[in-house]
């Protein structure tokens, strides 16, 4: 159970203190214990659950997971969604943040509106876009005003349009998280650099490429890690929009757990997510290595 021992006492730079046990340890200990119990322990249990039955070690659950007809489509959809969505989201978020930086009219209102989806769950986003994309929904109604006959965007045999619907819903909901991080990052960059580059005649794209983006790198790194990990967990959007027709890995976990009552296969699926999330985080940390890293701010 002991996953992480509480940090050992040896503070030096702290404000004056007289006690034997450094107060920092006392302050931190509850959180370490709590997280070891409720984060560390379940991870270990999850691994055991996926690979062990009454008779000891087994790969049964993994084979069942892989042989399930929904598994590979779910993996494919999840990866496809991430590969297409993340670059789009970052392009939009950086563009939106740069627009806000020029202080357009009503920029506070715009910022508020763009931040609203930040507090939305993916289930809510799915339901919102269901009202638009369903066969008799607002998109087809609007199209019919122009005399265009709409399609069944969410029909099970129309994978491409289903993918587009999920993509649009996720873009709508989750771009604001990236936006907030990028805006915060931009606030930390003095405008002087940009202006200096401008004085020396750099074009907009040159300034973006050689001044703004390098300075934004730490923020972008955090945003990439957070956003990708959260993107792997997307499922309620697809569930609300398409039911089972557009499987995603986490949705499969939910189905195995609640529908098929098999927590072991569900745990195996959860491990797939865990491993892939960890690998991507490590990849990002390496790819966007930053010299002055570690430590707050």
């Amino acid at each position, binding site marked *: 159970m002991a996953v992480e021992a509480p940090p050992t006492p040896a503070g030096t730079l702290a404000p*004056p*203190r007289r006690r034997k046990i450094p107060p920092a340890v006392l302050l931190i200990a509850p959180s370490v214990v709590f997280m070891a119990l*409720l984060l560390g*322990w379940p991870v270990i249990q999850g691994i055991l659950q996926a690979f062990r039955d009454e008779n000891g070690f087994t790969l049964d659950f993994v084979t069942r997971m892989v042989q399930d007809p929904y598994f590979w489509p779910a993996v494919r959809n999840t990866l496809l969604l991430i590969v297409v969505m993340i670059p789009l989201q970052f392009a939009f978020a950086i563009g939106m943040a740069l627009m806000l930086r020029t202080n357009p009219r009503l920029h506070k209102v715009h910022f508020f509106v763009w931040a609203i989806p930040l507090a939305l769950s993916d289930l809510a986003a799915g*339901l*919102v*876009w269901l009202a638009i994309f369903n066969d008799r929904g607002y998109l087809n109604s609007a199209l019919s005003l122009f005399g265009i006959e709409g399609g069944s965007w969410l029909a099970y045999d129309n994978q491409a349009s289903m993918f587009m619907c999920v993509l649009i819903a996720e873009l709508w909901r989750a771009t604001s998280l990236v936006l907030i991080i990028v805006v915060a990052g931009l*606030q930390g960059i003095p405008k002087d650099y940009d202006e200096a580059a401008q004085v020396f005649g750099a074009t907009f794209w040159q300034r973006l490429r050689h001044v703004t983006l390098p300075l934004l790198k730490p923020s972008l790194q955090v945003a990439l890690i957070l956003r990708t990990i959260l993107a792997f967990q997307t499922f309620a959007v697809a569930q609300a929009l398409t039911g089972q027709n557009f499987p995603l890995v986490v949705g499969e976990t939910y189905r195995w757990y609640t529908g098929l009552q098999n927590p072991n296969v569900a745990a195996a699926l959860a491990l797939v997510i865990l491993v892939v999330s960890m690998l991507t985080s490590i990849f990002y940390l390496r790819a966007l290595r930053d010299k002055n890293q570690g430590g707050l701010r």
Partner: protein
Amino acid sequence: MSTPVDTTPIARQKRNRFLLQAACIAVSLFMLIPIYLISLAALSTRDSLNQFPLSLLPTNLSVETLNAFLGSTGIFGALGNSLIVGLGTLLFAAIIGVPAGYAIARYSFKGKDPYQLFLLFTRALPIVVLSVPLARLFLTVDIYDTTYAVILLHTALALPTTILISASVFLSVPIDVEEAARLFGCTPLGAFGRVVLPMALPGLAAASIFTFVMSWNEVLGASILTLDHRTLPAQVLSSLSDSPLAYRFAGGFALVIPSIIFIALMRRYLTNMWGSTIR
């Protein structure tokens, strides 16, 4: 370039300015139109939702659909559960997380870097990984299908963020005022309670709202850990497949409205909470 006054740059700047405004408005419309439409759908009668070209303007508003949604079984209970879980999570996360955040901001101790890395790592833990084993643990200690189970899970999920955010909030309180209070005879606790806390309170409140929002929105863990005592999103999710469209729209509306209020409450803190805090 031979003309004495070249006005093209100014004209271009004007045009750029105009395009910029237009782009901002376009993005805002993209964000707002779906919210408008879900509100419209939730506030229409069931009959008008069955017509085909749906009216895009609020022609016949009624609360019939919403009333039916709120009156359907489990929704009121789920709303109450969501509130209890959200407030419980907020309280737990604050009690455990704020001291740790203070320690990160004010003390340097051995193991601080590993601790912060550990926090970053826990943010990367997918909820699914935790929920399935926790369900079994909670079954054995007999708190499965209670609001406590969900509160514990949500606190664990929110804790890393709470710690990092409160650390940055405390960092923004100058250490000088605290030292001054100590100099004038306050105990460490007294200095914290009388000087630091009042200054940090707005930021901490914003962090708490964020915790609440996270708990309010979390779907998967809540639906795995409960059967009868579901939170609102879990309830909506579980009845998704066998409910009429009108019910789903009303459910979506009920989930959207709080988020607008949350963001309105904390819009001033959005950037400084996410900005310096995260790393």
